[in-house]
Every structure is written in C-alpha cells, then in structure tokens.
C-alpha cells in the first residue's frame, strides 16, 4: 500500500484531466504535416457551409424574416458554439468503439467519474480553425447588423455563446448515453446531433411543424442561435416561437444537460446491468 503521507502533494482535482489532455494535444500536434492538413480541411468544411448560405441569399433577399446579415449572425453564433462543443466533447461519439473493444472497463479502474474521464480522454485540436470560421462570421455579422450596443448586449452575447456551446455539448453527451442501448445507433444520433447543428444555422421560422417540435423544444436547437438573434435584432420572429424566447438560451442548456445526464446515467446502469 502507498504511504498515505506520500499521496497528495499535487492534488488539484483537475490534475488527472490536465495530464491526459496535455498529452493528447502533444500527440495530435507532433505530426506537423498531418496536423496542418487537419487544420486546413477543418477550415475548408466551415467555408463550404458558409458559402452555401451565401449562394442561397444570391437568389433571395430574405428567408424566414432574416436577411443575409442576420443569417450571418445566426451562422456565426451556431457554428462557433457547435465547433467549441465539438472540440471539447465531440469525441464522446467514439463510445460505441470503446464498448465493442471493452476499453470502457479501463475507465472503471481510475478514481474519476466515468463521464468526466470520457470527456477529457481526447480533445479535437483541429477544430480550432473551424471555430475561427464561426468567429469570423460572428464578428462580420455583428458589424453589418444595426445593433444598439450596450453592456447588456455584450453580456447577452456572452451568455448566449456559453449557453449554446453547453447545449451542443449536452447533445453529444445525450447521444453517447443512448449508445449504451443501441450500440450501432450512431447513424441515428448523428442525425440529431449534426442535423441539429445544420438546423441551428438556419432561420427556424422556415421550419415545418415537425421540425419545430423536434428542434424547437425537444432538442432546443432554435435556442442556440436563431431565437437569440431575433431577440437581439428586434425582429418579429415566427408565430409559434416568439422572439422573447431568445432570452431563454441558458434554460435550453440546462434542459439539454438534464436530459443528457439522465441518458448517460441510464446508459451506464444498463452497461453495468443494474436494471435499467
């Protein structure tokens, strides 16, 4: 047994997580050539999606009550938040691989919570350029829109960005929890997670009723970017999604995480076979 006096020392609660993450970053950046390619391809995907919006608005002036400037802001917020969540949490969708190989069992042998270990087991550094694309769209969007700047607006934007990032992160975790039951269901959960990301960059006012039910409330994607932008710019918004809902972005994050943690907990119980 270890001498208890010799334990401790550097016992910050974050030390285990930091040690893993630091080594992952080093491992990913050590092959400079392929890392540079990863960064470049990440930027390219972001640009293609941005171009898609631009092409669309070449033929229409406004869509669902949003003009190009407003939609740029929606895209900027949604893409920045999603890419940030993807950077920190996106790799939890590798859970089915861990389940098949049995490597999740290794996490049980370490004195940290399983979910915390899984989240910090990897970090997708290549996503930083993708965040760069989102941030650029966001900054341009803020510049070209007519915004009455005030400390409240700045605070609103910060809160929205944090809440949206958390909402997307919660989506990833909820999807991982579901994987415990349906080991080969990543196609389905990807449809919700990545479909949600795509839907987040659109004006929600063009959605049909089923989409509103799914991405408006069940999976609160409308709260990540569209509703906050409508509230910020003082636009009328859609009739079933009044613009004041934009202030409830943090509530959407809380709701997503409540569902995510429940899904995770139920999933782990199922894995351990403790009834569930």
């Amino acid at each position, binding site marked *: *047994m*270890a*001498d*208890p006096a*010799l*334990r*401790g*020392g*550097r*016992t910050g609660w974050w*030390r*285990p997580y*930091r*040690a*893993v993450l630091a*080594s992952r970053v080093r*491992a990913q950046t050590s092959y400079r050539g392929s890392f540079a390619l990863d960064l470049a391809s990440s930027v390219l995907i972001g640009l293609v999606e941005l171009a898609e919006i631009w092409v669309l608005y070449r033929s229409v002036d406004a869509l669902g009550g949003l003009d190009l400037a407003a939609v740029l802001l929606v895209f900027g917020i949604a893409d920045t938040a999603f890419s940030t969540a993807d950077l920190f949490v996106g790799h939890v969708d590798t859970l089915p691989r861990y389940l098949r*190989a*049995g*490597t999740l*069992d*290794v996490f*049980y*042998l*370490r*004195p*940290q*919570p399983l979910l915390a270990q899984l989240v910090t087991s990897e970090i997708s550094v290549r996503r930083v350029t993708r965040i760069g694309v989102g941030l650029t769209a966001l900054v341009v969007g803020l510049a070209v829109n007519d915004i009455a700047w005030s400390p409240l607006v700045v605070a609103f934007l910060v809160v929205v960005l944090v809440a949206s990032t958390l909402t997307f992160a919660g989506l990833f975790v909820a999807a991982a929890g579901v994987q415990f039951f349906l080991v080969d269901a990543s196609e389905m959960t990807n449809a919700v997670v990545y479909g949600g990301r795509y839907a987040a960059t659109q004006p929600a006012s063009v959605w049909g009723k089923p989409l509103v039910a799914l991405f408006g409330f069940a999976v609160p994607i409308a709260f990540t970017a569209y509703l906050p932008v409508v509230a910020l710019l003082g636009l009328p918004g859609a009739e079933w999604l009044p613009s004041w809902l934009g202030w409830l972005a943090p509530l959407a994050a809380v709701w997503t995480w409540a569902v995510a943690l429940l899904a995770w907990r139920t999933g782990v119980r199922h894995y*351990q*076979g*403790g*009834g569930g």
Partner: protein
Amino acid sequence: MTTASSASGTTAIEVAGLTRRFRVRSRGFARKEVTAVDGLTLTVGAGESVGYIGANGAGKSTTIKMLAGILVPSAGTVRTCGLEPVRQRRELARRLGVVFGQRSQLWWDLPLAESYRILAAVHSLSPQRERERTAELVERLELGEFLATPVRQLSLGQRMRGEVAAALLHSPALLVLDEPTIGLDVLSKQRLREFLLAERAAHGTTLLLTTHDMGDVSRLCERVLLVDRGRLAYDGSLAGLSKTVGARRVLVVDLAAPAPDLLGVPHAEHLGSEGGGLRQRLAFDDAATTAAAVLSAVSERVEVRDLSVEEPDVEDVVRRIYAAGGR
C-alpha cells in the same frame, strides 16, 4: 487511509452467494437467461496468491468485473478490499489494480514513460512517490530499454510488462490479472512470473489471476479456485488439485536412436512413442517427482538429444475433475 488499510487488512475479497445472470438473444427476438456466475462464495485473505481457473465461459471474467465494480451482481454480495465495488468504485480504484490480458490501459500512441506520468496524475501520486515507484517498476520489469518507444511499436511481451507496471503504479493492495501470460513466449512468461513473486514479497500485494496456463498457477499461486459453469468446483492447494485429478506434466524426449518404450521409470508413466521410438512421452506427477529426476532416470537408459516439458492444460484439469466426480 489508516482506517482504509485496516478495513482491507484481513480480507482482500469477500464474496457470498454471488450470482450474475445475463439475458441473451437466442433466436430472433426470443431471449433466454444465462447464469454466468452461480452462487459463488469465497474469501481471499490479504497477501494471498490465488489462481482462479476454469474453462472458457466458466464465469472468470464476469467475476472479475463484479470485483472491480464494472458489473452489478444479480444476487449475493461482494466486497473488494473492504469496499462495495459498485457504490465505492472510485475509492476502490485507489486500492485495486487490474491487468486485462486483452485490453490495454496504456495510450497506444504514447511512450510508456508518458503513460506512467499520466497515470501518476490520475492516481494523484506525489512527485516523490511517482519518481520512486516508476523507478522501481522500470528496474524490476526491465522496461528501461523501451521506455521512450510508443506503445504500438512494442512487442507483446514488452507491452504486457508495461501493462503490469501501469496497473501497479499506484501500489494497489490487490492485483487482479486476467490471462496475463496469454500469447507470451517462455522467457517473457518466466520474467513476468518472477517479477510478480518479487512484487508480492516486497509489498505483500494480494494476487488473483485467471489463466489457462497451469505453469502460471504452479509457480505463482498458493491456492487454486476452480470454477465451472459459474460454480466453485475446487478450493485448495495445487498439490491437492493434482492429487484429486492427477494433473500431470509431460516430459517429451527426443532420442539419439530409436529405443523401445521407456517403461518402468519411477513415478512416471509412458504415454506413447513416435517415429519408432525416437520421440517418447512420459507423464509424471509434480507431487511425487521432478522433471530432472525423470530425465536422469531416462538418461541412464538412452541418449537424450532434445526435450520439452508440457504443462497440464486447465481445460484438461477441468475435464478430469468431472470425470473423477463421476459426471
């Protein structure tokens, strides 16, 4: 930790009526229930060295998963190092080390040295403790030569030594090894066994190992638990097991010239000859004689060119124990 070590001071494992059932899909949507572990009751004292053997699918891995808190028992109780594995998993992780023969807990793209730095952080070892323990394990397991090589480039034997060091870095009171020598060559097996003996002598570590290799059991374990279809079929010494089932080792000799069957060698039974008597097989009981004694008796009669010793197979032992029991 003082209270913790006194709690785990006497028993490492305490299991009563432990049962685990799985529901498996049999045909289409029909499900049937399979009992992997069936009313297992046993106690392993601190500092013991126990071989947990049984055929494939006998319930060994399921038991280990319940000991580590990975699986919830369907019935019965389990205490590992004085703790409830599922409820106190994180506390247990500080006192338990597990080596899964088939699952790595190393980072495949990192060198061992870095994996150990991370694991030291994971277990909150102090810098001093980390240095001392890593140095000790590197020296005893002879990891120095490939400490800076990424794990994916290591040979199986090197990687397995690396895995054992990883499981022992936090100085667990109980080390569980699931098929630690599977696929290893003779020399690697020998080294690993010697290390485990030394580690146990130095730190009083409790060992529980599952294996198909009776050599592991005879060299490492004072006690054998034989599990069959989820039930405990034997609990006692290896000598006792050999006596019960006559688990014998086999000496295979290649002779310089064909010779008649080597009958009448003391404590050895001639099993058969090949090549007109060029290769002969003699079974002997470890409790009654040694390989050296059999060999010297043989050498008095014929010229031996080459030899090997075959260990009894666990599957064979299991078969014999049921044959002896009249099943």
